[in-house]
């Protein structure tokens, strides 16, 4: 029961992180030139800088909770996945594990290059670091769902 609560909280944090990083990456890679009243234009015209600390904190919280749940995964779901020889989903989850760990290493640079005192010439570095984090967050979110729902496939 405790692990289910943790899994739900982990999922909710991941949703918040997904929303924040997607908002930021869209505003960085597809900025608005002139503000108009449409939903998409307003989505793109958000202040990217204001998301940085929240994204770092959400990433760390989501990762720590995921790491706690991971202990339970290895003695429950993982065993079933191996017995069923579902090697592709297994491999996808292994990638999630590695990407989460690599994303952790990107956080200090991501945070630093978003600071206001950093020269504007590093805007491209900032944008790519944001895109890498967005990719990792999206990948881990989707693969987490696939693994969580695996017993629903074909049953």
């Amino acid at each position, binding site marked *: 029961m405790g692990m289910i609560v943790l899994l739900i909280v982990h999922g909710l944090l991941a949703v918040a992180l997904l929303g924040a990083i997607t908002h930021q990456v869209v505003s960085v890679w597809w900025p608005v030139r002139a503000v108009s009243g449409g939903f998409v234009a307003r989505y793109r015209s958000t202040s990217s800088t204001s998301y940085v600390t929240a994204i770092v904190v959400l990433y760390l919280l989501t990762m720590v909770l995921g790491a706690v749940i991971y202990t339970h995964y*290895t003695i429950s779901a993982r065993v079933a996945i191996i017995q069923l020889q579902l090697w592709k989903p297994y*491999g996808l989850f292994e*990638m999630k594990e590695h990407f989460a*760990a690599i994303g952790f290493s*990107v956080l200090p640079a991501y945070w630093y290059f978003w600071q206001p005192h950093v020269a504007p010439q590093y805007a491209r570095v900032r944008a790519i670091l944001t895109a890498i984090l967005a990719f990792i967050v999206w990948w881990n979110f989707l693969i987490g769902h696939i693994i969580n729902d695996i017993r629903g496939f074909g049953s």
Partner: protein
Amino acid sequence: MIASRKLGVFVIAFAIAYAVIYVMATELNLALFTYHSALGEFGFGPNKPRNGPAMYWYGWIATSTLCALVIAAVAAYLPETMTRRLSPTLAWVAPLAAIVTTAGMMVRMYFLR
């Protein structure tokens, strides 16, 4: 300004060192510790499984973080003449290369078997 430069060198060096060490740690199993999830026990270094799966992931992260922290701290205090060539581009190239490398390893192990 000096503090900012040192912090900049630190974060770039950390991203590079961590990415390289993490890939090495996964390939060579350089886990600082092992967690035996079925027993709820920790073991120092990479241990063989005991009555259940042995988890190395936490140990790989610990190894990479500690080593990268030391390397980044040393780099931050090096003279500016030595760190000038440490391009900020490497702060994303190294993690991206690590992502591609680990993904390739997983494809080879689980998709092409």
